């Protein structure tokens, strides 16, 4: 139990999110463009992390499906920042794997003029620790 | 220096100002004492150099009551005090012409003497060298080693209130010390150690009131300690409580208003580090209520005349 709590605290510390600020309006999930691809949705991240129910999130595909477009952060009326939470869960997983999937020096050769800037940043968020 | 004299002469001659509040050379070549010059007296003796330490802002209380306009040479750190005096309506801004002057940190004659030099005849500043002539011979000191304590933690080199200012890009070239380091060292002590420290310091107090008289903030028409009707008046310290009382009350009265100009400690004949009391308040207020520098402007509410609904409870002190 305590390790679960520690994980919760760690994720909150990493993300700087205070999930108690959430008023459960669902605007984040109403906004999310990747909603259908995620089995856990932004508002669920907020409530599940708050309850310390983090393992399912770590196992989920949702953390990789999140586009990290930050629409949920932008729209959240209570400034809760769900995307930061998702990112923190993702980072926890990446750190446990102890792997960087993306090194900055390898990036230039992958660049494609068609690739949106945000996707590159997003890739960094997802694949490097 | 030459630029200052020219500017002052010009303003005096063209009638913009009637008097000049500045420093003049004193008995010894390194003595600098605040003085008022006018057309009649001329500017003979007016000097501005690294020995001009005094904060002139407080003199403006009396000077601005007189007829005519007074020009004042204003160092950056003293200008904060002037802003406080303007904010508290203690001076008449209309009757003051502020000529901002640059400062590359002041030299402490006490520190020169503390190097062991005696029989000093003359001190001359040449660049970064301080050349001291004594009856025993000549010595050269590095300017950096004999700067005033208050200059070692200088706030800023910007004159915050002025009508005109003379710029200079000269700097003392020193690394500033952490202003709160001394306070933190005291905080790290046990209460008994702190108590003993302050007892040993405050028991030296001879109640000469120099700290009060030099302070640009301590400018009450009548000080509570001089007023028989307050019930706490006292002219001399009769016991340890009164030594404490005077300094606690003084620090409290200037809390939130003190600009940390450091004059109180500088003038104390007993070398009591009085600035550490004021700085403690400044540190505490900065930490609890947000960074605030008294005198930055003449409008802002100081921390003790303001509040937020979310302020810390007094228990933060004993929960530490």
């Amino acid at each position, binding site marked *: 139990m305590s390790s679960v709590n520690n994980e919760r605290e760690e994720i909150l510390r990493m993300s700087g999110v205070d999930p108690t600020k959430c008023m459960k309006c669902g605007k984040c999930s109403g906004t999310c463009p990747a909603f259908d691809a995620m089995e856990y949705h932004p*508002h669920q991240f907020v409530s599940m992390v708050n309850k310390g129910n983090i393992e399912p999130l770590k196992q989920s595909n949702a953390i990789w499906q999140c586009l990290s477009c930050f629409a949920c952060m932008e729209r959240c009326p209570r400034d809760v920042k769900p995307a930061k939470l998702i990112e923190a869960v993702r980072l926890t997983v990446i750190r446990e794997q102890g792997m960087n999937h993306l090194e900055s020096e390898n990036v230039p050769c992958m660049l494609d003029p068609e690739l949106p800037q945000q996707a590159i940043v997003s890739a960094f968020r997802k694949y490097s620790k | 220096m030459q630029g200052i004299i020219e500017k002052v002469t010009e303003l005096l001659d063209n009638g913009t100002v009637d008097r000049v509040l500045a420093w003049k050379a004193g008995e010894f070549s390194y003595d600098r004492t605040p003085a008022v010059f006018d057309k009649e007296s001329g500017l003979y003796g007016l000097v501005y150099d690294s020995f001009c330490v005094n904060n002139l802002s407080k003199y403006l209380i009396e000077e601005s009551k007189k007829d005519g306009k007074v020009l004042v040479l204003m160092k950056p750190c003293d200008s904060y005090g002037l802003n406080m005096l303007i904010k508290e309506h203690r001076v008449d801004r209309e009757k003051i012409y502020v000529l901002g002057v640059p400062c590359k940190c002041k030299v402490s004659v006490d520190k020169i003497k503390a190097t062991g030099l005696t029989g000093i005849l003359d001190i001359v500043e040449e660049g970064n060298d301080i050349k001291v002539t004594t009856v025993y011979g000549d010595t050269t000191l590095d300017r950096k080693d004999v700067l005033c304590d208050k200059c070692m933690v200088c706030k800023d080199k910007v004159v915050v209130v002025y009508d005109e200012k003379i710029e200079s890009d000269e700097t003392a070239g020193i690394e500033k010390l952490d202003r709160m380091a001394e306070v933190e060292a005291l905080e790290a002590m046990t209460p008994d150690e702190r108590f003993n420290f302050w007892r040993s310091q405050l028991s030296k107090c001879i109640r000469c009131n120099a700290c009060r008289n030099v302070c640009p903030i301590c400018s009450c028409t009548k000080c509570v300690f001089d007023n028989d009707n307050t019930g706490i008046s006292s002219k001399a310290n009769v016991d340890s409580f009164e030594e404490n009382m005077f300094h606690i009350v003084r620090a409290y009265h200037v809390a939130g208003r003190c600009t940390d100009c450091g004059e109180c400690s500088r003038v104390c004949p007993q070398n009591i580090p009085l600035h550490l009391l004021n700085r403690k308040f400044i540190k505490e207020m900065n930490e609890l209520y947000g960074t605030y520098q008294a005198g930055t402007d003449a409008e802002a509410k100081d921390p003790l005349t303001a509040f937020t609904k979310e302020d810390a409870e007094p228990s933060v002190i004993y929960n530490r």
Partner: protein
Amino acid sequence: MHKIGVFVCWCGSNIAATVDVKAVAEAASKEPCVVYATDYQYMCSESGQNLIIDAIKEHNLTGVVICSCSPRMHETTFRKAAQKAGLNPYMVEIANIREQCSWIHKDMAEATAKAIVLARAAIAKVQLNKPLIAGESEVTKRCLVIGGGIAGIQTALDVAEAGFPVDIVEKKPTIGGKMAQLDKTFPTLDCAACILTPRMVEAGAHENITLHTYSEVEEVSGFVGNFTVKIRKKARKVKMDLCTGCGLCTEKCPMKKQPNEFNMGLDKRGAIYIPFAQAVPKVPVIDVEACLKFKTGKCGICSKVCTAGAIDYEQQDEIIEQKYGAIVLATGFDQIKPTKFGELGYSQYPDVVTSLEYERLMNAAGPTKGHLLRPSDGKPPKEIVFVQCVGSRGQSCRDKSYCSKVCCMYTAKHAILTKDHYPDTNIHVFYIDERTPGKNFDEFYRRAVEQYGVDYIKGQVGKVYEENGKLMVQGSDLLANEQITLAADMVVLAAAIEPDKTARSLGTMLTASMDTNDFFTEAHAKLRPVESPTAGVFLSGMCQGPKDIPETVSQAGAAAVKVIGLLTKDKLLGNPCVAHSDEMLCNGCSQCARVCPYGAITYVDKEFRVPGPKRVETRRVAVVNEAVCQGCGACTVTCPSTAMDLKGFSNRQIMSEVDAICK
């Protein structure tokens, strides 16, 4: 030299059972200046009071200490007794030896010792008491109501009915406010105009009410009972006394291109216009920004058609000055324009409207004559999505932090009314929490769901976009854990309400404090909800916080009662325990004024003789307005020179108590 009498009360056995009252009297009699000390069974009884009165007279007492129950209980009683005996009532001090001594201690010796200390402290204090005389000030028996909405009208009517003259200042050309724009009212669904307009007419016709419409408060000075207010009556360019309100000018005006504010800009009005048919006063006003005559010097049609000769292009703003005893703030609210919520498309799509706009679209006197037609193409909408909490309850810069309170209910109302008129319309409501605490409120909301089949969706809308001529509303359905997209014909945003923008400057003028949201603060959140902390200023309606019509009306009535209570008095007796500045000590530093919650401190330049031949010096010194000061003492601690002191609780008095206790 004082002559002090000490009276120790037994309070039956309440005190005497635990405190040796005789010992207290005995000990007190040995204190300096005490010339008389006694004990008695019930000091507050008539015979007890007579005992005090006789002793004051017999011993020429200059100060009295009563050792008894809490001063909160009988301080006034004993002060009155002292006054009967010719002693200034403020020369009485109470030592609380019941609540704070006999009732909480069991050991007699201990309780007696404490009672003696408490008596000693009171004796020490009373020696420094000074006779205080409560200041009197006249009360101008006239009330000013700022704002002519339902709150202002109700307050004005109640005060006027009690026989006091009332002036209403309204910045718009007519009274009526926001309520006049509403269609029906929840939860009874009676028509807003039907219940409001009689009130408007009554206010307009009342012999005690003067309307200053199209006017603004320019300047306020003075204090409770004695306010002087300058009111700017803006030039209507129409003579009120001549105009018959026939409306011919408004029909003939060629400049019918101005957005009609009353209909939320959904249709147009002329440059000369009457805001709406039931306006009071029913006198048009010329919008000089839009009028051809003012822009080009040509036209003048309105003047030509006016048979009464009421049009006056030369009319200028007029400033009137009036004295008032009380001021009521009823400045009301506005609905925010949700332009910052780009994702909801308010600025982009004409069919995304605010609820107040929707209100006008439903209204029989509205731009569509009561037919619900969407603004873009004038077709009746079949799918309508309501979005609640737009701009309310948020923490970002575009949100208000508070709940706007009325949106849940009016959204249910809109849904019901729409379904009533157009049963084939589908209605969806995105909500976060459905808040219905009010009489018959929840029943009303349930009716929308159960009887009318309104689709309530727990969740918020993420975005609104257009696709194939439909407004696509994408939002979350939290209960289904789904993201849904609805194709709608219209989207109605329950945008947050906010206090009227002009309230802030009024607040400054009146030193009526405001919270961070610009709502006026009440003197006490629970016990004085319709008074502002500034004496003589009262609060009515939405300017104090979000509320619905019945709440507004009851608060308006409560404010009126407070006003009447004030105006009924001929003179106001101040609290003499107020701050006082010793001008010989004052530095004029303004620190005291910075902490005064009442704006009671002003500064004057005063000449003082100073040592030296015929020298005078001008100094800035603080002056306390005793009628405004409430005696909190915040200023006294801020004053470094102790120039500022509090009568009745002076520095010396409190310190003498400290000394006596610590001895």
